[in-house]
């Protein structure tokens, strides 16, 4: 048969030869010319070494180092590099583990478990202390396949501020997914407090180094001249608004008591101290091998030391609510600061009696009403505000009041830099419509709001902010704990520079300050050198002894600190809450309490020694 395509024989042979030539070229490139493979003898593989960045340090407002990084080591291993003949007894001794642990930690299902592969390093042992590691390191060369990775864990210079600082812990599956796989198993992540809020700024960026290894696991040099390597970027250092001395002092004063203190610098919204008692030593939850035990103990404690009461506890404000009700009444022009009332020891309406106390002086004006915390005055004032548009129009009156209260930062989370905050409660007309029916209820139905009771609830931090608003005569900056990130203008902190107005003209505040100063200057909370303003409150507690509360700012003019305090189950506000707050104020403004004043020293001693937990429970 005739063959028309004989010429294609040559084409095919040329095609084959071209293919072989291509293979040869590539071999020549790899074996003769590629500099990555020259100079290397005995290289058996490439290993990725993760370089963990230093996490950002945390300072207080005076540059005291609060949180630093502590070295801890993870021992990692590449399974197919392990020498079968190593002295396991010695190995285990060096690491302080038993042989069962050794076997267990190496027993991975390489066939089915996709997380583990024989040639990819995995973590053999976590959280080896620096001392233990030093011992092991000297002999590490005897154990091919094993190497160490430095991990930074947190250390704390002060035994205080645990709730604010928060802690880091190992990421869980959900967090890994949520981060778009940024985190990898075994990574640490801020779980609560500042560590959580500013995780992305504090953590920095991981680095990677690819190195070539020989068959004994020794590093032979950079892979591809380090082209794929990435230097780690350290996390940003965080300067907080905390005054650690004040914080520690507050925690000491609150020991053996349940409650919380929040202190704010009114001019900036800086939180100077945020105390929740009982607390815990931050070092207990630092990452080490005893950590899970500590955590379980804390989590199971009936006093709930892990709870940050400054944000999550909510109480009726009680009488501390009276100053802002006063200024709202003035702004709405339903109250007259110079007009008093006749208090007959109770407020009567429609044959019902709402109790008040006997006062040492007549309630000649608003100042006296504050000074003596006259319930009668505030029941009336409250009704004047609610009934401004007529007795039938309680909804409108309440809506107006609620609007003011929201502008005072109540009824919603302040949304600052520690998450987990609850909103408190400001009941609205909608709420009462549901309870009593639309347009059925009138001001007397809800009159207990007038003295800060009823459905009204505030958190300690909201209350401190309320104090700051009065101190500022009408405005506030959202309270916050992050002051700045070293070396950068952090966008996330911009919102703390926005001035929020309460809608009350500053002139109206003068009317209540005399009364508040008189409250502060009387009895156990008096500070000779500092004229300041405050208001006590007693929160009725249906479950037991009343809670005592106090809100204050100091000094009266150009205030430097606003403070709110709740002490649970401690009775009247003037018994515990006010003296403790006064000690805090004096400590902050003067650096210490007046040690030459026996009364102050005695009060401090008494507050420190008071135990409201043991025996009460």
């Amino acid at each position: 048969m005739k063959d028309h395509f004989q010429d294609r024989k040559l084409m095919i042979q040329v095609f084959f030869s071209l293919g072989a030539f291509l293979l040869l070229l590539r071999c020549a490139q790899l074996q003769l010319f590629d500099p990555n493979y020259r100079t290397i003898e005995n290289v058996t593989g490439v290993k990725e070494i993760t370089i963990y960045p230093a996490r950002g340090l945390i300072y207080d407002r005076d540059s005291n180092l609060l949180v630093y990084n502590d070295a801890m080591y993870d021992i990692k291993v590449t399974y197919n590099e392990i020498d079968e003949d190593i002295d396991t007894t010695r190995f285990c001794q060096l690491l302080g583990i038993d042989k069962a642990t050794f076997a267990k930690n190496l027993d991975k299902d390489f066939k089915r478990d996709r997380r583990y592969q024989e040639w990819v390093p995995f973590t053999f042992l976590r959280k080896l202390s620096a001392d233990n590691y030093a011992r092991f390191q000297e002999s590490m060369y005897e154990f091919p396949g094993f190497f160490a990775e430095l991990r930074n864990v947190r250390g704390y210079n002060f035994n205080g501020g645990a709730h604010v600082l928060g802690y880091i812990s190992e990421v869980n599956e959900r967090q890994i997914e949520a981060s778009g796989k940024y985190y990898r198993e075994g990574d640490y992540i801020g779980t609560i407090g500042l560590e959580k809020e500013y995780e992305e700024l504090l953590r920095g960026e991981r680095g990677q180094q690819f190195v070539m290894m020989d068959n004994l696991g020794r590093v032979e040099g950079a892979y591809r001249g380090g082209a794929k390597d990435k230097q780690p970027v350290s996390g940003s250092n965080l300067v907080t608004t905390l005054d650690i001395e004040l914080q520690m002092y507050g925690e000491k004063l609150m020991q053996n008591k349940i409650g919380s203190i929040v202190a704010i610098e009114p001019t900036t919204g800086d939180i100077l101290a945020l105390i929740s008692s009982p607390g815990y030593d931050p070092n207990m939850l630092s990452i080490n091998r005893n950590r899970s035990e500590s955590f379980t103990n804390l989590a199971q404690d009936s006093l709930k030391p892990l709870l940050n009461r400054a944000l999550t506890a909510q109480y009726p404000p009680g009488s501390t609510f009276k100053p802002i009700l006063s200024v709202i009444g003035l702004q709405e022009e339903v109250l007259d600061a110079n007009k008093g009332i006749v208090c007959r020891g109770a407020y009567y309406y429609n044959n019902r009696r709402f109790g008040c106390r006997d006062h040492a002086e007549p309630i000649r004006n608003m100042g006296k009403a504050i000074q003596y915390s006259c319930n009668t005055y505030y029941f009336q004032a409250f009704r004047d505000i609610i009934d401004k548009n007529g007795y039938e129009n309680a909804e409108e009156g309440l809506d107006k009041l609620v609007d003011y209260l929201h502008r005072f930062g109540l009824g919603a989370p302040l949304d600052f830099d520690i998450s987990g905050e609850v909103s408190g409660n400001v009941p609205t007309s909608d709420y009462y419509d549901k309870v009593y029916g639309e347009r059925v209820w009138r001001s007397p139905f809800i009159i207990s709001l007038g003295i800060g009771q009823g459905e009204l609830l505030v958190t300690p931090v909201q209350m401190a902010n309320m104090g700051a608003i009065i101190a500022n005569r009408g405005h506030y900056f959202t309270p916050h704990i992050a002051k700045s990130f070293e070396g950068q203008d952090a966008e996330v902190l911009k919102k703390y520079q926005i001035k929020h107005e309460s809608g009350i003209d500053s002139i109206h505040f003068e009317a209540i300050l005399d009364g508040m100063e008189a409250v502060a200057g009387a009895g156990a909370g008096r500070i000779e050198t500092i004229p300041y303003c405050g208001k006590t409150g007693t929160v009725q507690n249906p479950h037991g002894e009343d809670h005592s509360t106090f809100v204050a700012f100091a000094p009266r003019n150009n205030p430097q600190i606003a403070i709110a305090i709740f002490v649970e189950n401690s009775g009247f506000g003037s018994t515990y809450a006010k003296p403790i707050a006064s000690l805090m104020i004096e400590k902050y403004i003067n650096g210490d309490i007046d040690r030459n004043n026996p009364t102050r020293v005695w009060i401090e001693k008494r507050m420190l020694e008071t135990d409201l937990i043991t025996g009460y429970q």
Partner: protein
Amino acid sequence: MSRRAGNSTEIDWILVFLYFGLVLTGLLMIYSVSSSETHPSLFDFDVRQGSQLIWIVISMIAGLVIMIVDHKFYRSFSYVIYVGILLLLVGVLFFGQEVAGSRSWFNLGFFKFQPAEFAKFATCLALANYLSGYNVTLQTNRSRLTAMGIVFVPMGLILLQGDAGSALVFASLMIVLFREGMPALLYLAVGIIGALSILALVFDWVPVLVILLTLAILALSFGQKGRKTLSAVFGLAAAVATWQLIGTPFLWYAIGGLGAVILVLFIINLRQKNSSFAYLVTVGLLISIGYSTLVNYGFNTVLKPHQQDRINVWLRPSKCEPLGSLYNLNQSKLAIGTGGLTGKGFGNGPMTQMEYVPEQPTDFIFCTIGEEQGFAGSLGFIVWYLLMLIRIIEIGERQRSKFSRLYAYGVASILFFHFMVNVGMTIGLMPVIGIPLPFISYGGSSLLSFTILLAILIKLDSARLASF
């Protein structure tokens, strides 16, 4: 005459020599990586080198049997063998043993048997038989489709087993059809599509677009009458400028400019009564742009993740994790690269010795040659293999029987594909497709089937002077 067929003088000893050279190389390489202090002997049947030795002996016996059988048997029974193998390929889908996601092995207890390996020579025989039929010419669509059907049926069945690598091998038989007169344009088209696919995957969509526009400008420039060089140089300059603008906001203006240049050249070509060429180029350009867009889309939707991985490793390694999907290839390249010019010496390659390269004795056996024998070894090996391929074609061309010639081309095509892809994948030139290196890789089923493939050729050749 037929009695002369068994006469040893007719056997092509050059091919036999080349074959034994490869088998011996394979055995030595397997011995090199598998021997150890506890198993130092070549004849230790507990380990790989011993096992491979047994398979070499079995293959020799099979080769001898093939030599003894009358040469007419292979043609007469080619369809029977083909159908028998097809039945086995269907059977393995139901009764086969599942290994790593593919169902392609029969486990007979004493040895494991992969019908896909034997489908290669069976398909070669059937294809050669069909194409050498009296009324068959590749100038008719009917013959073309039948011939392609013979190739694609076993290919499809193997694909169903989940063994894409072995299935792709059958595509190499298109070389046989090319030799027998399949239109060259078809191969050119496939080549262009292949090149375009690779281009679209290696680069992003935008650079490919610029490249295509540039090619169109050049084609149209040379298509017109006069000012060829001028417009080509101008067009090229515009294209280079556009290339520089990739990644800047001005890019799309520049691409618009290239489009305008094409439009002008298109009109010039039209005016010069060169319209069919102008239309061809323009339509070709539009189709190419459309296709390169579809490639990336198809890549992401049609291919399974592990297949995407393999393509990524091959064409865009920067998208891969060095310790993830790139690991095998990196280890392989490292082993070969560190071999240098002369290699680390027999039995001295630490990477291949300690199995730092996965699948070392089977699919990545070439690493051992590269690491221990260096570039000198690679050169010798590749040239040796090429010599064998060329020899097979020469043998094919000297056949009087068309059947024998076609079979020879089938053998050459299959061996070439295996050789090219297997060696290519160890050095990153080809995607990692798990197919063995014939005569070298460890594995009985593979060695036996390739020996049968080659032995039938030697038998047919030895009978080339006999009547058919």
